[in-house]
């Protein structure tokens, strides 16, 4: 059984509530979109904390994949409800359909980056070839 650790527990709970509300059609589309983006922010924070700053455990990766899939599905559903004709307009929160679409696409990138088939060596090989640098020698930050 997977252990639901604190950051994932909070994110999973909020995403689950939002999904239920979305399916039930309880709130306006604008409210649902705003809630989805808040969930996305929490998800990104948990991702940075558990997957980037720390060495992720198998449970971290499993919860990341599961919550990511739910967020993606909810985002796609919101896109379907948000008529394509409205692409250029912005809602009361100044968010456009294109913003939502871009954020959903970003989750697709996270999905393939963290749960795709590319190996660490393949990632390094691309960086070596494209940027002409040795990935393990790269230094970031102001003190570099």
């Amino acid at each position, binding site marked *: 059984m997977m252990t639901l650790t604190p950051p994932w527990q909070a994110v999973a709970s909020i995403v689950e509530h939002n999904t239920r509300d979305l399916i039930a059609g309880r709130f306006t589309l604008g409210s649902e979109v705003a809630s989805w983006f808040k969930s996305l922010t929490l998800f990104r924070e948990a991702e940075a904390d558990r997957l980037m700053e720390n060495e992720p455990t198998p449970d971290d990766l499993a919860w990341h994949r599961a919550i990511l899939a739910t967020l993606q599905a909810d985002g796609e559903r919101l896109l379907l409800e948000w008529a394509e004709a409205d692409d250029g307009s912005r809602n009361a929160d100044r968010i*456009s359909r294109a913003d939502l679409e*871009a954020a959903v696409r970003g989750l697709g990138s996270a999905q393939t980056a963290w749960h795709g088939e590319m190996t660490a060596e393949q990632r390094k090989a691309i*960086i070596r070839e494209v940027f002409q*640098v040795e990935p393990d020698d790269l*230094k970031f930050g102001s003190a570099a």
Partner: protein
Amino acid sequence: MSRCPKLEAILAAKHRLENGAPEEQAKLRAELEELLKNVVTGSRSSGLTVRQLEDSLRDVYREFVRVKRREEREKLSRIR
């Protein structure tokens, strides 16, 4: 240790996108994709796609975020 400004510009754009406001997502995504496209176009790596290039950044982006978060914490602790 080495630096790569072109790569760092992409990682910074990715970081801005992932931490950007909802109403800026389309603009920030377009900025990132433009940088990725420029690199793919100028690359001699045949058949490389923008998506593959973005996927390949995972581990270096992870290191970039670690350093950025550490520096932010240090800056905050100096202020307090």
